[in-house]
Structure formats: C-alpha cells, structure tokens
C-alpha cells in the first residue's frame, strides 16, 4: 500500500512538472468548449441582407422594420438599383436581398396578390435555404397579423414543440459530444505515453528489477489522470452550465458516476496502447490519430449512426464514446434515470474490465 502511494505520488510529480501535459489536459477541453460554443455554430445568425425598396410604402417599410428586429439578419444599407444587388453580392457584403416592386401595396389592395423577390447567395446552400425560409415565414406571419384571411374557414395550424431543447440552443447538441470526444482523446492520449515513457527513458529497466507488481504500475499510472479528468469533467460542466446555458436535467451524481466509468474505460484503453507500443511517438500517433477519426465518425454526434451502412454501424459498436454519448444525452438533456441506460453502462463496464485485463496480460515483465 505504501508502495502504491509512493508510486502514485511519483506519477503526480511527472504530470505537474510537465507543463505541456497540463496544457493539453486542461487547455484542450476549454478551448474546444469555447470554440464549439461561440465560434463554430451550425446555427445561422447575422445573415447580411439588403433591401431594394421600389415601393417605399407603408407595407414595405413595416416588413423592412421586422427584418431589422430579427436577430437572424443583419440589415445593410438599402440598395437603390438592380445592378447594385449583384455588385453587393460579389463584394460579399450580403448573402440575401429582398426586392419590393414599385406597386407593392397597390397590388395587394387591388388583387390581393403582391410579390416580393428574395434573392439568396446559394454558393452556401445551407445559409441560402435558411434565409429564404426565415423570410417567407416572416412575410406570412406579417400577412396573417395584418390581414387575417376571413374567407378561409378551415385552417390547419401545426403546433410545433421541440422537445428537450425548446429554445433550440445548439450547445445542447454538441456539449455531450464534445465531452465524449475530449475524454476519449485526452485521457487515452495522456495515459498511452505513460508506461511507454518509462520504457523509452530506461527507467522501466530499473523498475523491473524491483519488487513491484504490474497491476500496481497500471493503477498508479491511471490514478493521477483519473483525478485530473474528473476535475476536467467538472470544469466542462461548469462552463457548459454557466457559459453556454446547458442545463443538467438528470441526476448529477448519476452523470458523474457514468462519466467516471467512461474515463476509466478511456484510461484502460490508453494503458493498453502504452503496453503494446515501444515508443512515445507510436503511442501518441495511435491514440491521437487512431482514436480521433473513429471517435468523430462513430460517436454519433456529427453523423447519425442510424444512417450509416450496416458494416459501419457494426464498427461503431466497439467505439466506447458511442455508448457514453447515448448515456450523457439521456441523463443530461432528457433527465432520464439509470433504468434507461443500464445496457450502455454495462457495455462500458465490460469494456473497462476487458481492456484493463488485456493491458495487464500484455505488461512485459522483461525487456522485449
């Protein structure tokens, strides 16, 4: 026991004296959360738009005002002629233009039908579609509010409800994904160099000629990273809750326990890599490059697994982060309890035990 404590203390010294490791451990998650939260967003906001108002009447002005109060659009100075539209598009100043014909209101009064032209820059089809949809929605609602159609007696009005994320806060989608990604990469990468570093530095040779047991080495190597990863987890949750407005709906203790389990799975994987490789470079390459792509692809937060071909779905079943992503979404966003996620928990637990077992079996008690 005293041996183990001395070993763990030594590992803590290694971690705390290696500034680069600390930077990776704490810098990476914070940067990722902030990046995904503020800089990289799939929501379309602040679409540059300009209005060519040939009508200059009451209706066209009111519609323009509505545009201005809408946070999705950033209304640029008005356009005065048709050729100017293309010019502004080419400058990249606007992504969308709205054109009112000269007799906009007159048409509306007379025939009950008026036209507006919406021109969008479809070199980015996503933004273009969204912008066009926003505008048509806006025009429709304007029409309904100002002139309720009296002649239509039958109307179907779909009442939309977006469950679990009614405000459509984009952070809700990526926070669980990023947490899974961070643990999968940071924990695995950092532990994957821990044992192999001793081999490379030659300290393993001295360690071997001492009365230590392999399990002690593995446990001692894992504990500092486990502790730091837990701190990391709390940090990420705090950032998500207070900075990105993501609420933890489920039981926090359950979320915490599941996260610790997932961290242990990742650490076990890292230790296994460390035991199988002979240089820090190889270990880092396997854990960073080798883990990054499967984690991104098969966790399910970038690409839905249900849409993948069967072989890829099968592969996704061996990626631990896939299960954690299901768990964390269930607990954090839907507020479900343990009975809904026991299967995934069991898979992760089995993976941890299995990986640790293989790592222990592969621990070389002699030099190559």
């Amino acid at each position, binding site marked *: 026991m*005293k*041996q183990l*404590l*001395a*070993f763990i*203390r*030594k590992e803590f*010294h*290694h971690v705390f*004296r*290696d500034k680069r490791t600390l930077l990776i451990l704490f810098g990476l998650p914070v940067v990722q959360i902030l990046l995904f939260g503020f800089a990289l967003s799939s929501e379309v906001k602040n679409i540059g738009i300009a209005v060519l108002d040939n009508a200059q009447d009451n209706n066209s002005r009111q519609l323009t005002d509505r545009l201005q109060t809408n946070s999705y659009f950033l209304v640029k100075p008005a356009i005065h002629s048709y050729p100017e539209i293309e010019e502004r598009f080419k400058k990249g100043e606007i992504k969308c233009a709205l054109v009112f014909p000269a007799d906009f209101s007159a048409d509306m009064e007379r025939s009950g039908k008026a036209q507006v032209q919406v021109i969008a820059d479809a070199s980015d089809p996503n933004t273009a579609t969204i912008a066009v949809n926003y505008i048509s929605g806006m025009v429709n609602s304007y029409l309904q509010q100002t002139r309720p159609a009296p002649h239509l007696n039958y109307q179907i009005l779909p009442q939309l409800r977006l469950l679990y994320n009614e405000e459509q806060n984009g952070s809700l989608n990526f926070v669980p994904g990023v947490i899974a990604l961070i643990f999968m990469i940071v924990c695995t990468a950092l532990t994957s160099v821990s044992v192999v570093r001793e081999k490379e*530095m*030659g*300290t393993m*040779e*001295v*360690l*071997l*000629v*001492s*009365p*230590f047991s392999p399990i002690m080495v593995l446990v001692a190597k894992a504990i500092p990273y486990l502790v730091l990863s837990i701190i990391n987890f709390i940090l990420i949750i705090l950032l998500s809750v207070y900075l990105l407005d993501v609420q933890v709906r489920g039981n926090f203790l359950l979320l915490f326990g599941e996260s610790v389990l997932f961290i242990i799975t990742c650490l076990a994987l890292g230790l296994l890599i460390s035991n199988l490789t002979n240089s820090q470079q190889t270990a880092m390459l396997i854990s960073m490059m080798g883990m990054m792509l499967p984690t991104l692809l098969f966790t399910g937060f970038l690409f839905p697994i249900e849409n993948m071909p069967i072989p890829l779905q099968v592969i996704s079943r061996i990626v631990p982060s896939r299960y954690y992503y299901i768990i964390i979404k269930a607990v954090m966003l839907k507020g479900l309890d343990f009975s809904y996620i026991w299967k995934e928990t069991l898979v992760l637990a089995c993976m941890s035990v299995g990986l640790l077992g293989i790592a222990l079996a592969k621990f070389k*008690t*002699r*030099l190559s």
Partner: protein
Amino acid sequence: MPAVSLQHISKTYNKGTVKAVNSVSFDVNKGELFGLIGPDGAGKTTIFRILTTVLLPDQGEATVEGLDVVKDFKTIRRKVGYMPGKFSLYQDLTVSENLTFFATIFKTSIKENYDLIKDIYDQIKPFSDRPAGKLSGGMKQKLALCCALIHKPDVLFLDEPTTGVDAVSRKEFWEMLQRLKQQGISILVSTPYMDEASLCDRIALIQNGNILSVDTPQNIISNFPAPLYAAKAKNFYQLLKDFRSDPAVESCYAFGEYLHLTFKDAGNCDQLMQQLRDKYQPAEFEYKKTVPTIEDSFIRLMQQTIP
C-alpha cells in the same frame, strides 16, 4: 555457493542473426568485487540484463545467490541492486524524491539503510532539491548508486558506472566500491576502461560475446607469456609498419606514445631488438623492456581467439 554463477549462457538477437553472448561461464564469489572488462559491444550489458532477470537467455543456466534467473526472477529482483549503463532515474524528480521513491518501492526507508549510503549521499546532499536530469555526470552516477543500494542488496550489478564520468569522479567511485565490498556486498561491475581492471578482485575479459580469461588482475598480467618491449621513433607509423612485417616479430601494436611488441622467439629478445634497430635504422629510436598491463593481456588474448 557463489554470489553469481553463469554456465554456458548464450543469447542472440534478431532471431538468432546477431550473437551477443556465446556460451559464457564464470562465477562471482561472495563478497567479491568482480570486473567484466571488454570494449563496447562485447556483450557486457546482455550478461547484466540476463543476471538481473530482465532478459531471458537462449541457452545455459545462471544463478544469483543460488536462485535461478528464469524461474526465481521475482525473488532475485528483491535481492539485487541494479544500475544500468544508461542513466535510468526519473529526470524530472529531484534527488531526494528519486531516492525516497526507490526506498519505498523496496519496502524500506532512507533512514533504515542510511549508514550504507551515507558516504555517497553526503556528496550529493547539497543538491537534494535539484531535478536528477540537471545533475553532472558524476553526480548522476552517485545518485544512481544510492538508489541501487538503498534496499541493502546482496549483490550489486553496476553496468559501466564510470562511462562518461571525469577522472576524479571515477577514482572516487571506485573507492566507494571498495568500501561497499567491505560491507559484504558482492559486486559485479563492467567497464571498458582497462586501467580500472586492476581495482577489481578478479576480472573476466570479454570480447565479441566470448570470455577470454577469468582470473585476478595480477595473475592475468603475470601470465603474460613473453617479454614485452616498448619502442618509439620519430616516424612512428613507418616503425609500426616495419616491425609488423618483420618475421621475427610476433605481435606489434600502438600503445600510447609507444609501440608494444613481442617476439616469436622469447629466448634472447634484447638481441633481437638490437637486430631490428640495425635493420631499419629508425631516427630518434629508443626502446625499453616494459611490464605488461591488463590491456596487453587483453590484446594478446584477443589476437589468439581471432586467427
């Protein structure tokens, strides 16, 4: 029972293509300071690794304190102290942290065996808060020795402990080994430096994985079979070439500023030496009869094994 015993130990690398150690046998007696002397690549480190149980031999048997290096490796690992050739402590831990760590994993404490390491540790104590990686070469070796000694091992394995260490520190290091020997610890030490051989009780000369000779340094020197002459001249290289091609000369090699040579006919060497001088007439020629060193013996044994 010898402290260490090897019987026909062989080891190859790369699936048998590289022969590292070839049927090596020797014993190290209890309480002995035994030197394994040979150039780089002779197989010294391989022997150390087999004896410290971190490498398995291909053939042969070896025991440490009567324990088999393959079967009883766990017990051996508790009983021996090992200092590998490459500095193998934690460079980012301080001197005292390294020592405490090794003391603890051997289930002892610095206090318990302080008297054993006191002489050595006192010298590095002023730097006890310095990271081990920032110590000088000699200091590193002293710390490594402390760490290898902290659990009071029965046998101490020191693989090239003085390589890369300055002359003064080397001398100090050997004095420490003498003191440790008096404490009853058996020591197996390897070195490429021939001048350190005479400081051992017994030595084994090793070359290309083969043991050339095992004896006390004195015996190895006195077993040198022929009178040895040292000679030099203004044109050193010409002299070496002439002597080597001369039929009367058995062997001739550069040794510091002199040539060392022996004759095939060991009977009247003085006369032969004069004949050589008359034959080649080298400028500024001088010669003398000289006492052989371990290195002379080594070179001679080496030439005998390589036809």
